[in-house]
C-alpha cells in the first residue's frame, strides 16, 4: 500500500466513521438535551405554525433553548426517584455480595475437585441460560409472591438476581481458578491447611481481578434488570430505578420526558463508566463462556 493511496482511501473511511459517530452519539445528546432543558417536552424548541428551514434545522439540533438543572432537582424533590435509586442500590449491592459468594465457592469446587455430578452440574448451569424468561417468570411469580409473600420486597428480588447471575459468574470464575497453579495449594496442604483455609487465604486473594469482574457483572445485572422488577415490585415506593423511569413515560398519564431523561443520566452514568473501564475483561469472559458452550 503506497502512502498516496492511503490518504485518499482514508478520507472515505473517515467520512463513514463520522456518519456512524453522529448516529451513535445523537440519541445520547438527545437525552442530555431533554434532561438539561428544564422542561418535560420532547421538542428542543417551540416551532411556529409555519417554520422556516433554519427553524426546522434548529429543532433537530441537540442543544436546549436554555440550560437548566431543574429536571435534576425536581426528579429528586418532586418525584420519588431518590427512593427508587436507593431501592436499586440496596438490591444491587446485596445481589453482588450474595452472587459473588455463591459463585466463588461453586466455581472453586468445579475447578479443583473431581466429584460425581461435576460435569452434569456445570452443564446444567449452561443449559439454564437457554430457559426463556417467561417460562420461569410465572412460576417465580407464584413462588415469590403467592407462596413466600415476598412481592414488593427486597429479599425476593435479591434472591432472584443472585441466582440469575450465578451461571455466568461460576463459569467465569472457574476459568480463572483453572489458571492458578495447583502447586500453591499442594504445598499448603502439606502444611496441614484445610480446604476452607486454602480457599479463603490463598485462592481468593490471588483471584482479585476475576472476583472484581464477577462482582461488576452481578451488580450490573441487578442494576439494569427490568422485567423481573416490573413483575415482582408492584408498590410504587418499592420500584427499582428501571421500573420507575418507565413509570415516567410508559403510562397513559402525562408523559414526563424531562424527569425520565434526568433520571436516566443519573442511573446510567455510574454503570456506563464502570463498563467502559472494565469492558475488556467482561468481553473476554463472555466469549470464553460462549466458546466452551
Amino acid at each position: 500500500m503506497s502512502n498516496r493511496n492511503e490518504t485518499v482511501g482514508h478520507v472515505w473511511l473517515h467520512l463513514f466513521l463520522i456518519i456512524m459517530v453522529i448516529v451513535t452519539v445523537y440519541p445520547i445528546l438527545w437525552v442530555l438535551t431533554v434532561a438539561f432543558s428544564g422542561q418535560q417536552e420532547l421538542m428542543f424548541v417551540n416551532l411556529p405554525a409555519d417554520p422556516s428551514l433554519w427553524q426546522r434545522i434548529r429543532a433537530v439540533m441537540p442543544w436546549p433553548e436554555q440550560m437548566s438543572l431543574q429536571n435534576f432537582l425536581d426528579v429528586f424533590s418532586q418525584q420519588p426517584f431518590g427512593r427508587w435509586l436507593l431501592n436499586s442500590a440496596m438490591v444491587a449491592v446485596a445481589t453482588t455480595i450474595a452472587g459473588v459468594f455463591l459463585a466463588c465457592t461453586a466455581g472453586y469446587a468445579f475447578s479443583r475437585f473431581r466429584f460425581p455430578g461435576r460435569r452434569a452440574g456445570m452443564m446444567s448451569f449452561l443449559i439454564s441460560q437457554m430457559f426463556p424468561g417467561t417460562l420461569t417468570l410465572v412460576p417465580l411469580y407464584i413462588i415469590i409472591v403467592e407462596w413466600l409473600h415476598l412481592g414488593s420486597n427486597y429479599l425476593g428480588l435479591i434472591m432472584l438476581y443472585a441466582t440469575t447471575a450465578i451461571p455466568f459468574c461460576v463459569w467465569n470464575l472457574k476459568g480463572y481458578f483453572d489458571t492458578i497453579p495447583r502447586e500453591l495449594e499442594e504445598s499448603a496442604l502439606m502444611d496441614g491447611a484445610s480446604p476452607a483455609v486454602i480457599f479463603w487465604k490463598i485462592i481468593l486473594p490471588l483471584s482479585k481481578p476475576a472476583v472484581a469482574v464477577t462482582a461488576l457483572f452481578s451488580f450490573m445485572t441487578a442494576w439494569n434488570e427490568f422485567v423481573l422488577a416490573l413483575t415482582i415490585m408492584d408498590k410504587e415506593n418499592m420500584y427499582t430505578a428501571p421500573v420507575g423511569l418507565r413509570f415516567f413515560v410508559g403510562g397513559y398519564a402525562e408523559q414526563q420526558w424531562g424527569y425520565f431523561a434526568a433520571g436516566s443520566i443519573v442511573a446510567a452514568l455510574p454503570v456506563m463508566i464502570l463498563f467502559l473501564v472494565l469492558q475488556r475483561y467482561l468481553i473476554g469472559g463472555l466469549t470464553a463462556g460462549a466458546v466452551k458452550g
Partner: protein
Amino acid sequence: MQHSSTRQVLVGALVALAVGVLLIGGVLRVARLTVVRGATEQNAVVTAASVSQVLAQVRAADGDLQAVARGLVDRLEDVDRIRVIDSGKRLLAASTDAADLTAGEVPRRLGREEKAWFDQAKELEANHRTNISEGNARKDEILRMAVAQSQLELVLPLFAGDTVDGSVQVLTSAVVPRVPGPRLLPLAVVAGAFLVLVALSVLLKGRWLFAGGLVLLVVGLWAFAALGLAGLAAVRHDVEAAIAHHALEVRDAVGLEAPGTTLDITAWNVDRFGAPRGTFDRAGTVATETVDAGLAEGGRRFGQAAGLLGVFALVIYYWVGAGWTVRTWQALRKHHTAYGFVLPAMIGMIVLVFFPFAYGVVLSFTNQTLYNVNQPLYDLWVGIDNYIDILSDVAVWHTGEDGSRIINFQNFYWTLGFTILWTVSNVSIGVSLGLILALILNTKNLAFRPFYRIILILPWAVPNYITALIWKGMFHRQFGVINQVIAMFGGEPIAWFDAWHTSFFAVLATNAWLSFPFMMVVSLGALQAISSDLYEAARVDGASRWQQFWFVTLPSIKPALVPAVILSVVWTFNMFNIIYLVSQGEPAGATEILITDAYKIAFEQYRYGYAAAYSVVIFLILMIYGVWQNRVTRATEGI
C-alpha cells in the same frame, strides 16, 4: 445395570411399594371424602327442592304457605328453617324463623335490612332466564350459603308456572350417607406381591431378580389402584342409592303434610345449575349407566394421577434397588468438601431456576389462571390442550368482505414469523455493520482510532431499557425528533406505530443501534489477532484485496464470530425490552415477538397455564436451533 444385591432389591421394592400405596391410597382417600361430602350436599338439595316444589304448588292453589312451611319443618327431620320470598310482590311470604315473626306477621313487605333476600331471588330469576335462553346450564340456580359446620342453607327459585318470581330459603342439617369403610383386599394384594418377590429371591439373583421386582411392583401397584378405584365406584353407587332412599323418605313425609300435590323425586335430584342429574328414576331405582358414565371421567383422571405416582415409586425402586442409595451415600461422604462448596449455589439454582422451570412445564398442561391459582393443579389438568390450541391455529389471515386479506396478528405463526424476521434482520445488520466498522478500525495508520472506538462502543454501555425509552421518544409521532428531520426535508410526519412495517422499522433501528458495538468489538479483537505474515504470504502469491478478505480474514475470525453470532441470535430472539418498551406490540400486536406475547398472556390476560405452554414452545424452538447450529458449526468444536 449395576450389580444389585438381593437385599437392595428387596428393600427397594418394599420402600417403593410403601410409598406407592401411601400416595395412591391418599388420593383414593381424598376422592372418597369428596364423594361423601358431595352426597351429603345432594341430600340437602333433594330436601330443599322438595320444599320448593311443594310450596310452589301450594301457592298456585292459594293455600296457606305459612302453615305448610311450619308443617314441613316439623315433618322433615333435616329441615331447620324455611323462608319464602315473593319477589313479584316484594313479600316475605312465609317464615318459620322466630326473629322474623317477632318483626311482624307474615306475609308482609320485606324490610329494608331484608333487601339481600330480594336480591337473591332476583339473581335466581335472572340466572334461570339465562340458562333457558342459552339452552344450557351455566348459571347457578341453587345458591349455597355457608352456615355452621353441620348446617347448609340453600336458596332455590320459587316457580310460578315456568317463570321464577321468588325464592325459597331452606336451612338444612347434614344427612351424611353411610358408606362401607375402605377394604383390605388391595393392601393384601400388595403384600402378596412382596411375598412373591421374597420367594423369588431364593431362585433369582442380580439383574433377573431386579427385573422380577420391577414386574411385581408394576402389577402390585396397578392392582392396588384398580381395586381402589373399583371400591370407589362401589361407594359411589352406594351413595347414589342412599340419596334415592333419602328422596323416597322425603316424598313420604311431604305427601303426609301436603296431600294432593304432585311430587316428582327426579325433579329434586338436580345439580347447582338446576339441571337434572338423572341418577335415579321416579321409583327410586338407581340408574346404573348414568352413574357409571359420571365415573368414567373421574376414573380417567385418577388413572393419570395414579400413573404419575406409580412412576415416582418406580424411580425410588430403581434408586434403592440398583444400589444407587448406597453409592450416593458413599460419594457424599467421600467428596463432602466439594459438595459443601457447591451446595449453596446449587440450592439457589434448584429452588429459583430448575424447580420453576419444571413447575412451568407442569403448568403448561393446565388451564391455570389468576382466578383459580389456589386450586390444586390436578383439578386444572387439561393435557396437551394448550399446545394444540397454540399450534393448530394455522389461519394466519382470513379474507375480508371486499376480498382483501386481513392478517390475524394474534396468531402464533404470525408472531413466530415476525420473531424470525426480527432476529434475522437484526443479526444480519449487527454482523455486517460490526464487521465493516471493525475492518475500518483495523486499518493501519488510521488517525483518531481510539477516539472512534470509544465513541462507537457507547451504545453497548447504555442500559438497554434506557435506550429503548429514548428511541420511543425519538419516534414520537408529534414531537419526535425523527419526524422533525423528515419535516426538515419537506416530508410528511409518519405515525410510526400505526402500521406494522413502520413499527418494525422503529424497533429494528433501536436494536441495531444497541447491538452493533458487540459485534464490532468481537470482530476487532479477532482481526487484531491475525498474524500479518498471513497477509504477507497472500500478497506474495498475488491475491487481490477481496481474495485476502475472503481467504485469509474471514476464516481467521470465524472461530470468534460464530459463537458471537449464536449468542446474539439467542439474545435477539428473546429481546424483551426493546419490543415491550418501544413498540409495545403496536399496531394491534403485529410487532409482538414470542417472548413479549408470552409475557402479555401471563400478566395482562392472567392465563398462566397457556402462557407456560407458549414459553415451552419458545424453549423448544431455541433448543432445535441450538442443536441445528451445533451440527452446522461442528468446525468450532473443541476450541
